[in-house]
């Protein structure tokens, strides 16, 4: 096995007449196992669409994605998730009829989701474990005081953290986060950054879309820059900060070292 966990090969996505991802030759990049990758670019560059293509929410118009060497074409997004790929959405999604705790618990696949074990009742033994794991990850993201709450009472930033928690309980091998700090206050951003660093240190692979570059460039070890669906640049945060094309297309002068 190579040490590339994710291989994106000549990926394109067309919406009607608009080519959102891929440009001329298609979008290609590799992600090394254990890397913390920043995915940046102007609004409409195709970052979220790329996430949707990788996670199977959208089908590519052409090209392919491979996870751990396995081609993901024609694989349902639920199955991709079960292969160890977790993701969050740019607009946080929550299960509104479930409590905060249940929103996280439902993330853990339980044997009780099989009809046979529903009737045998064998799921009960796992349930206590799932619950304590859920409380643990809720503590990690700073939502432990909202455990019994209904989702409607959460703020925008809290919903975002809830979604992160729901993915954390799944123990994903690779986690895709779409603008995790948007609407999240500075103290929680600090918490989030240390969570990401912890996950990174555990050897997990992370791809983070962010416009908050102070946050992202301090933790990423590789940065990929998209523009108009195409790869504009790829390199370490320092290389990217000083890349003239990236500065004029996206960064402005502020980040130049």
């Amino acid at each position, binding site marked *: 096995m190579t040490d590339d966990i994710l291989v994106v090969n000549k990926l394109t996505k067309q919406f009607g007449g608009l080519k959102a991802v891929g440009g001329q030759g298609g979008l290609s990049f590799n992600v090394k196992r254990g890397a913390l990758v920043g995915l940046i670019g102007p609004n409409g560059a195709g970052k979220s669409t790329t996430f949707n293509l990788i*996670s*199977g*929410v959208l089908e590519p118009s052409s090209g392919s994605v491979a996870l751990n060497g396995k081609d993901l074409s024609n694989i*349902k*997004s*639920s*199955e991709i*998730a*079960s292969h160890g790929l*977790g*993701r*969050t*959405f740019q607009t946080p*999604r*929550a*299960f*509104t*009829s*479930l409590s905060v705790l*249940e929103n996280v*618990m*439902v*993330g853990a*696949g*339980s*044997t*009780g*989701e*099989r*009809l046979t074990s*529903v*009737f045998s009742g064998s*799921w009960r033994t796992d*349930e206590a474990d*799932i619950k304590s794991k859920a409380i643990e990850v809720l503590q990690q993201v700073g939502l432990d005081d909202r455990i019994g709450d209904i989702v*409607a009472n959460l703020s*925008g930033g809290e919903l975002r953290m809830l*979604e992160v928690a*729901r*993915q954390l309980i*799944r123990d994903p091998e690779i986690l895709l986060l779409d603008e995790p700090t948007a609407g999240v206050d500075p103290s929680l951003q600090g918490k989030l950054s240390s969570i990401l660093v912890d996950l990174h240190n555990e050897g997990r692979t992370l791809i983070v879309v962010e416009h908050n570059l102070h946050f992202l460039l301090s933790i990423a070890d590789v940065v990929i820059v998209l523009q108009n669906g195409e790869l504009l640049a790829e390199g370490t945060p320092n290389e990217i900060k000083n890349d003239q094309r990236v500065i004029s297309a996206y960064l402005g002068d502020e980040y130049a070292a």
Partner: protein
Amino acid sequence: MNIEQLLLAVLTYGCLYSVMTVSLNLQYARGGMINFGTVAYFAAGAYAYAIFTQEPPSGLDQYAFGFNSPWWVGFIAAGVAAFLFAIVTGWPTLRLRGEYLALTTFAFAEVLHSIFLNERRIGNGSVGLSNVNRPDFSWIGMSDNYGFAGAAILLLMFTAFLCHRILASPYGRAIDAVRDDETAAEAVGKDIKRLRFEIFVISAVPVGFAGALYAMITTLVSPGLFTAEVTFFVWIALILGGEHTIKGAIFGTLALILFEEVVRSFNFETVRSAEIAASVEHIMTGIIFIMILRWQPFDRFTKKEAVQ
């Protein structure tokens, strides 16, 4: 009609229809699937029971099948028939959402109705199958009326237990998640197609059993008994019960059945006044339906989300 008969009728039909409402609650309120063809699974159960328990055809009989089986074989056959019909109708349609699923299930029910109406070999066409066999309650010392009331209560308890068991487990949690947000549910590995299909099929089984019980009580199955009115009745009862709970579904049904039975129990001096009463009942049912829809529209789940 005296009070005892009235109460017995309310109890029997109330529990019988509650079986359907509780199943619909599982499909719709929890599973998010709008099934406007509920009557089809009810009819499938009733016909299966009648066909399995009747004598083989002889003489002038137009129907082609009769297996002369004991009542419990017919009862099981009813559940199996509803189960199979749910597989046939659910497989191609469950990808559809909301009103599209509603229309398709409605159409399937109409097709089944039309088959029963026109295909004499199955159920004697529009005449139906009469003298349907009843189980004998005398061995437990009960009259038929009390026996059927007891059977309806037992069937309802079984259905409520089944639904409760499912909903109170991680399975129920996953179903809720799928209904709330399919994309997010898939992002945590939920196979939404499997979950929806299983719920659709499993909740049809008690409806089939209810069909068998209905056939025993009326001793007649004919297309005229299984029209879309049955579906609408169950829907009204479910919405009347509000609160997406098993209890709500049962109370809604009992209230509606009580209303109908009381209206029917009035003694009318003339045929004319009986006719008027019948139309008033229909109008009232319609008005209740409109009022309920006005205040609790189908999209109340999405409404919940908007409270931000």
